[in-house]
């Protein structure tokens, strides 16, 4: 039996999200490698438009329309996916590793008795069996993971690892199925969206950003970083641990859960480069990093780097910049 590939489509405010297309791309490749078929599953309040968009890229689209899916409801998504997939083994379900799907994948894997690998950045097929590649230990080590002899597999994908190329030529079939949760009283209820508070600095529109991370230490002298940012004519930003420690307000946080930025120059100081952070600086043409750990993942996305002690490099850099400005 061929391992059938399923992809869960994710949407917000009546629009398919980028993670969906990356999952379609990964699913397409897996289906080709395993010689099997690709089906997209869309759970939506109103599927109009979205189902047709998916059908252009996917040979088959299964649609559940239920007002309860107007926003993402992980609890009901799990119940619906169990109903749809329970008799489909062997299968592999592919989803983006979004903050919403993080609520779904582990519970679903238990409910469907599947093997699960989260946050995968690549796959390989060996003897007809898929293997997943993911990262461990603060994202510093790559691991190849096997699903043993599982006939049911769930995977989630690292954002940005499967860039989507539209073909527009799938000519897919859309099949509507009755909502498996039509009579369910939801245990989890969406109330409303909340936007993060806005501050006096808008790092999203800055051309030059000096950004600090965990590597600046537990009791850092923030002034040396502010002073460097001033000398460069830029603004100060940070990664998540700095906000967690209350050293800077949330609206300074760069990353997928903070602000996505596109400066001309991004100077990362003591930032290790976890993917959540790197996801927020993808659009920056020049990334420069200073870190004491030569293995820090940030050096894999930066164009230039210095391996060294921030307390020495930062003041020296500021002095030199002031000289160059004259």
């Amino acid at each position, binding site marked *: 039996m061929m391992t059938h590939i399923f992809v869960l489509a994710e949407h917000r405010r009546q629009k398919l999200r980028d993670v969906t297309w990356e999952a379609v791309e990964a699913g397409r490749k897996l289906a080709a490698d395993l010689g099997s078929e690709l089906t997209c599953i869309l759970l939506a309040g109103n599927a109009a438009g979205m189902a047709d968009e998916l059908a252009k890229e996917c040979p088959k689209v299964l649609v559940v329309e239920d007002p309860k899916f107007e926003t993402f409801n992980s609890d009901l998504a*799990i119940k619906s996916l169990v109903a749809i997939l329970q008799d489909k083994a062997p299968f592999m379900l592919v989803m983006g590793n979004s903050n919403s799907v*993080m609520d779904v994948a582990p519970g679903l894997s238990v409910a469907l008795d599947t093997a699960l690998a989260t946050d995968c950045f690549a796959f390989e097929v060996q003897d007809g069996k898929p293997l997943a590649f993911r990262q461990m230990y603060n994202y510093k*080590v790559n691991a190849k993971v096997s699903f043993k002899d599982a006939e049911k597999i769930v995977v989630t994908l690292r954002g940005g690892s499967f860039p989507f190329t539209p073909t527009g030529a799938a000519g897919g079939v859309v099949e509507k199925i009755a909502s498996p949760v039509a009579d369910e009283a939801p245990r989890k209820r969406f109330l409303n*969206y909340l936007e993060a508070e806005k501050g006096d600095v808008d790092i999203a529109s800055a051309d030059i950003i000096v950004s600090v991370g965990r590597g600046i230490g537990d009791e850092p002298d923030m002034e040396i970083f502010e002073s460097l940012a001033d000398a460069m004519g830029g603004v100060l930003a940070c990664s998540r641990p700095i906000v967690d420690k209350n050293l800077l307000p949330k609206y300074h946080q760069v990353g997928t859960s903070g*602000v996505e930025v596109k400066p001309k*120059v991004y100077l990362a100081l003591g930032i290790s480069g976890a993917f959540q952070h790197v996801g927020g600086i993808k659009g920056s043409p020049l990334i420069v990093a200073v870190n004491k*750990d030569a293995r820090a993942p940030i050096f894999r996305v930066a164009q230039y780097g210095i391996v*060294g002690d921030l307390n*020495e490099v930062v003041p*020296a850099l500021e002095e030199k910049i002031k000289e160059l400005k004259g």
Partner: protein
Amino acid sequence: MDIIVCLKWVPDTSEADLAIAGGAKDIKKDDLDYDINDWDRFAVEEAVQIKEKVGGKVTVISVAPDDAEEMLRESLARGADEAFHLWDDAFEESDGFAVAMILAKFIKDRPFDLILTGTLADDDCCGQVGGMLAAMLGVPSAVLVSAIEPEDGKVKFRKELEGGLYEAVEMDLPAHLSVATGLNEPRFVSIRAVRKVASVEIPVLDREELGLEESQVGSAGSKIEVEQVAMPPEGEGAEIIRGRAEEAAARLAEILKEKGGIG
């Protein structure tokens, strides 16, 4: 409100130099310091703060080897009421699923309103035990949660989405929540506070006491297996500017000027 907090004992790899162990199935861990998983520290603090507000009991548990007693005791000093240490040599090499199974076995006969975990573990970076445990216990679950407000029979909270967006959500109790870092400020634990709980007994429960079969734990009970680990290839990515700090900084300043990084 009875809250159970699940903790993980992890090697600190954030700043350490890592090396691959013989066999290439894991990293060398002998020289690494172990501590409570960063996200889980926030989970304990949140549980204690909720208890301080609405009353109840906080229980901390961990599937971890003997050394982790230190983490459980520190959690008692933080304000947890009781701690249980779940360990057996047979638990070695358990994946997230097997760990969730061990936790579920311990929790299933105990009354609870809320289970708190951290969203991710710094060692395997899977983010799966909490949600798996919730499914095994039949309760709803959410991750990346902050602003937790328990009400009668339900809990309201804020869940982090992407790009600075959050959603406000309401969920029936009992439930599982994985907390986001930064949702509170974990309190400082004084040596005196640790001394006060020095004699509190922390029961250790092994596989048989938990009623688990050998096939349910360790690699036998695991759904996935790490076949190989490797350091990502070096030399990929950034051009490293060498030299003493002043020299490297001077060269970097020139590059920045050239590329429009000095406004």
